C-alpha cells in the first residue's frame, strides 16, 4: 500500500509482487553469505516497534533484525505502556511516531489497525500481525523456509492444520503461495475452525485447488509441506469453545508414519502441545529454522522499505 504521502507500507503479503518476493529472498540469502556487508546499512535509522498486544517472538525478531543492520530500536511491548491506554487513536499514534522513527513495525489486536497507521504515517509501516487478519512477515519467514527446504515454490501440496479460522499466518501463506503454479492446499481443521469465507472465495476466484477435511492422517501421504498452527486462546470470546477445540490436532511421530521422507513441517510458533517434542529431532521439522529465516526476511524487508 502507498499512502497519500507516497510512503509504501507492507500490510498484506499481496502488497509484494512475486518479483519483489524473489528479490527479498535473494537479499536474505545474501545476508546469510555476507553478513558483514549488512552490519551498518541502517546506521542512523530507528525502528519503532509498536506492540499493542504481547508478542515476544515477533518483536524480538524485528529488533534483532534492526540491530544486525546497525540501526536502533524504540517502542513498547504492550498497550498499557502506550498512549492507547489514555485513549489515543491509532492514527494519532502513527503521526506522532513518524516524528521519532524511520520505520514502524506494528502489532495490534484489532484487525485493520496497521492499515489505519499506514494511512496516516509519514514513514513505512510493517504489519506485524493484526488480530486474526494478516501477518505478512511471518509469511516471509514461511516462504524463505519453504524456498530453502524445497528449492522453489512450484507444484507443492501444502497441508494446513489446526486453527484455520483465526490463524492469520494461514491466510497470508495461502495468499502468497496461490501465485505459484501447481500449488494446492489441503485444509485440515475442526468444523468450527475452517478458513473464513473470504479466504475460500479468494482460492475459488484464483482457481486454486483445495480440499477441506477433518482427517489429518488420511491426507498425510500427499503432503510436501505440513503447516501446523496453534489454537489461540486470545482469539476466542468464549473460554468453553477454546477448551473444547484446543487439542483438536496434535502431531505425534505415529501420525507421521505415512508421511513423505521429504515432508517439511512448519509452525509459526509459539507451540503449546500441537507438535510433540519427540518430533523436534526429526529432520523434517523446520519450525526452528523458520525463526532464523524470519529474522533474515525482516532484515531484507526493512532494507527494502527504507530504500537503503
Amino acid at each position, binding site marked *: 500500500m502507498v499512502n497519500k504521502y507516497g510512503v509504501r507500507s507492507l500490510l498484506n503479503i499481496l502488497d509484494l509482487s512475486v518479483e519483489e518476493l524473489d528479490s527479498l529472498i535473494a537479499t536474505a540469502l545474501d545476508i546469510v553469505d555476507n553478513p558483514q556487508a549488512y552490519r551498518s546499512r541502517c546506521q542512523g535509522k530507528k525502528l519503532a516497534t509498536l506492540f499493542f498486544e504481547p508478542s515476544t517472538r515477533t518483536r524480538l525478531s524485528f529488533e534483532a533484525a534492526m540491530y544486525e543492520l546497525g540501526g536502533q530500536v524504540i517502542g513498547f511491548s504492550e498497550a498499557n505502556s502506550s498512549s492507547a491506554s489514555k485513549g489515543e487513536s491509532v492514527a494519532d499514534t502513527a503521526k506522532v511516531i513518524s516524528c521519532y522513527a524511520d520505520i514502524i513495525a506494528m502489532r495490534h489486536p484489532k484487525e485493520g489497525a496497521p492499515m489505519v497507521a499506514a494511512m496516516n504515517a509519514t514513514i513505512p509501516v510493517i504489519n506485524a500481525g493484526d488480530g486474526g*487478519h494478516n501477518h505478512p512477515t511471518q509469511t516471509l519467514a514461511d516462504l524463505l523456509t519453504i524456498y530453502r527446504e524445497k528449492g522453489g515454490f512450484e507444484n507443492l501440496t501444502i497441508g494446513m492444520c489446526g486453527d484455520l479460522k483465526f490463524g492469520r499466518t494461514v491466510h497470508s501463506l495461502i495468499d502468497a503461495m496461490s501465485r505459484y503454479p501447481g500449488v494446492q492446499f489441503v485444509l485440515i481443521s475442526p468444523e468450527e475452525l475452517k478458513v*473464513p469465507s473470504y479466504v475460500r472465495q479468494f482460492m475459488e476466484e484464483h482457481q486454486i485447488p483445495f480440499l477441506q477435511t477433518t482427517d489429518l492422517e488420511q491426507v498425510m501421504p500427499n503432503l510436501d509441506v505440513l503447516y501446523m498452527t496453534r489454537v489461540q486462546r486470545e482469539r476466542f470470546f468464549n473460554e468453553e469453545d477454546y477448551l473444547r477445540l484446543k487439542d483438536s490436532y496434535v502431531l505425534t511421530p505415529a501420525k507421521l508414519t505415512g508421511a513423505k521422507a521429504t515432508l517439511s513441517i512448519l509452525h509459526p510458533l509459539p507451540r503449546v502441545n500441537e507438535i510433540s517434542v519427540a518430533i523436534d529431532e526429526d529432520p523434517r521439522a523446520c519450525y526452528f529454522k523458520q525463526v532464523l529465516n524470519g529474522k533474515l526476511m525482516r532484515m531484507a524487508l526493512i532494507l527494502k522499505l527504507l530504500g537503503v
Partner: protein
Amino acid sequence: MNIDSIKNGIVIDHITAGKGMELYRLLKLSRLNCSVALITNAVSSKMGRKDIIKIDTDYQVDMDILGFVDPDVTVDIIRDGVLVEKKHLTLPEKLTGVLSCRNPRCISSTEQELPQVFCLADRTKRIYRCIYCEVAAK
C-alpha cells in the same frame, strides 16, 4: 394520484417497490428544505410496481448509495421543467458512510471516528468488504 411536476430538481425513478423509504432514509432527504415526494407502489408498465422519489431542488444525490441499494434505478435531471439528463447506475466500487462493519475484532469497532469504508469485492454476488478487516458486509 397527482404529484405536481418539478421545475428544477431530480426524479429518482424505477425504484424497486418497497425500497423507496429506505432510500429516503439513507439519502437523508428529510433534512432538505424543499418539496420531496415519495410515491410508493406506483403502476409501472416495465416493473409492475415501483417507487419514485421527486426532489424539487437542484440536489447532488449520492449516487453511491443509490447504486448500492438499487442499481436499476434511473436518475432524471430536470431543468426548467425539461428532462435534460437521464443517468443509469452501477454498483459503486467504494462505499463510505453507508454500511457499518459488524466484525467486533475490526479496528472500526473501537475507533468510532474512523470512516466506515467498504469496497466492492464481487460485482456478481454484490459483496462488499470492509477495507480494514476484509469481512463481508451483511
